[in-house]
């Protein structure tokens, strides 16, 4: 069983932001296991939660995500996040 972690991002909300973030993972062959995204503050920004496997490249991934112009805040929840535990009910 892989140890998983959740990266929580606060990002600008416009078309293309998701492709910046997913593309960053994809071209480093790093799979995103789960994604959740909702607009906040009336829609100017969004919050994204990424469920990823915590392998040796994770620190580098987080640094790369943090560099993206549209990413405002990066937080890491190594203990998991309720977003995904609740979402799991839908796919059970």
């Amino acid at each position: 069983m892989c140890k998983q972690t959740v990266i929580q991002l606060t990002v600008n909300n416009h078309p293309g932001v998701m492709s910046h973030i997913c593309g960053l993972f994809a071209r480093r062959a790093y799979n995103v296991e789960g994604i959740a995204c909702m607009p906040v503050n009336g829609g100017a920004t969004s919050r994204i939660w990424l469920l990823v496997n915590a392998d040796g490249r994770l620190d580098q991934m987080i640094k790369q995500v943090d560099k993206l112009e549209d990413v405002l805040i990066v937080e890491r929840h190594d203990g998991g996040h309720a977003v995904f535990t609740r979402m799991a009910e839908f796919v059970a």
Partner: protein
Amino acid sequence: MRFSGAEIIVKLLERQGIETIAGIPGGANLPLYDALSTSSIRHVLTRHEQGAGFIAQGMARVTGQPAVFFATSGPGATNTLTAIADAKLDSIPVICITGQVPLAMIGSDAFQEVDTYGLSVPITKHNYLVRSVDELLRVIPEAFRIAVSGRPGPVVIDVPKDVQTAMLEFDVWPEPGGRGAGPELMAPELAYAARMIDEAERPMLYLGGGVVQSGSSALARALAEKASIPAALTLMGLGVLPVEHPLCLGMLGMHGARYTNLAMERCDLLIAAGVRFDDRATGKVAEFCPNARIIHLDIDASELDKIKSAHVPVAGDLADSLAALLELVRPGERARWLGEVARFKREHPMIIPGADDPCSPYGVILKAAELSGDEAIVCTDVGQHQMRTAQVYPFRRPRQWLTSGGLGTMGFGMPAAIGAALAAPDRTVLCFSGDGSIMMNIQDLATAAEHQVNIKIILTNNNALGLVRQQQDLFYGKRYFASDYSRRVDFLKLAEGFGLPAIDLGSSDDPESDLAAALAKPGPCLIHVPVSPDAPVYPMVPPGAANSQMIGGETHV
């Protein structure tokens, strides 16, 4: 005030201090060109959008300021991608403004429509698809700020045609975008780094393009001198220290001098500044500086611990971190270590075959350097000529040396040289190229002739892809497949056809004086030097091997 989107873009570029823009018009950016026609900005019409991108790069690399280029939608935009990716890998601040089909037609596979935003995501520092005319007031200054702040890089702004024609009523122009402050340094980290330097017996500086970009070459030199630390330079770092400086060991890595790689092997502390541990510099990473602890200074935190873990990683502007270290380190003599380095230099010198022959691959570089003087700017394409220039050209200043380091783009040299000459019209620009490389953007010879830029293209012609052939020679059993050109191109006639004077050193009775005459005459010129396809570039570290495994270039072989 009431302006169209296109007029707003051009006005904002003027306010950013942009004086020259290279590009090509097309259906989707014609409003932008119409607005440009009444501007004080000079336009350079190229024959290919990739050429426009490299002209912008040439300007940006020489000045350190962002440069702009234009392309239309679809094929115009796709033609820019190589130049943009090249700028990304070498951290060059360029801004590419592309036209796009009208907003309502986006996603309909309209004529000349391509997803420029999507295509440019992985090769830009940031990119925009502008959706309304009022966004331009924010996006343009922001693009300039992003291109030059922190680690510089390329920005793409895709502007739909109807956004260019839409009118906007507004009161004040936004402030031009400029460089933001770097991250704050952590004093204890630097104090610890300084103590490591003081205590090291065999420290070595490892200086790269970041030192050039941050304008901190003088600080790096002062640090080397104060603590008596020899310095190895990456391909992008050439010129940070003048070659004749006693502490300068020149280029390390795949085609570095033997003594440089041997000294790296021996060092007990590596002070890496503005470098990213590229594999062409490090060779097999696990065996790079095997005995050294590492201090890594970089403005881009994601470069720290990326390839090799540093004992002290310092995130910050090199101008700040080098200045702080310079204050903190103790003056040092290090006679024993410098003596050892001197012995490496003596026992494993750089061997330069044909150094005195102006018709040989190395000799023409040395002769051109001697004849053109200290003020020349030096551009190269990619290949054997590039590595030879990096090895032997006497670089003395930062921003004197323009080469495609990270992406290694053949076709870079000639248009980048045009850009350099446009940015520094009083200087001679030498462009060392090869027959393989120059063909990849040869159409812009017409642009060079049209603008009478002072570029001297020194074309060493072996009718082959020299570095490919060299690898086939060494690692593929001499099976030269697809690396020789069976058709000999007449570059002298080509130059003439494009409107450039050309000379052939191969058939010259007095090559040295012919070369001198060609370099002395203002304007563009092509200097053709036929060379053998069998002349290797040595030393060479086999790809994937440790830097200690250098092939060739020994004395007494």
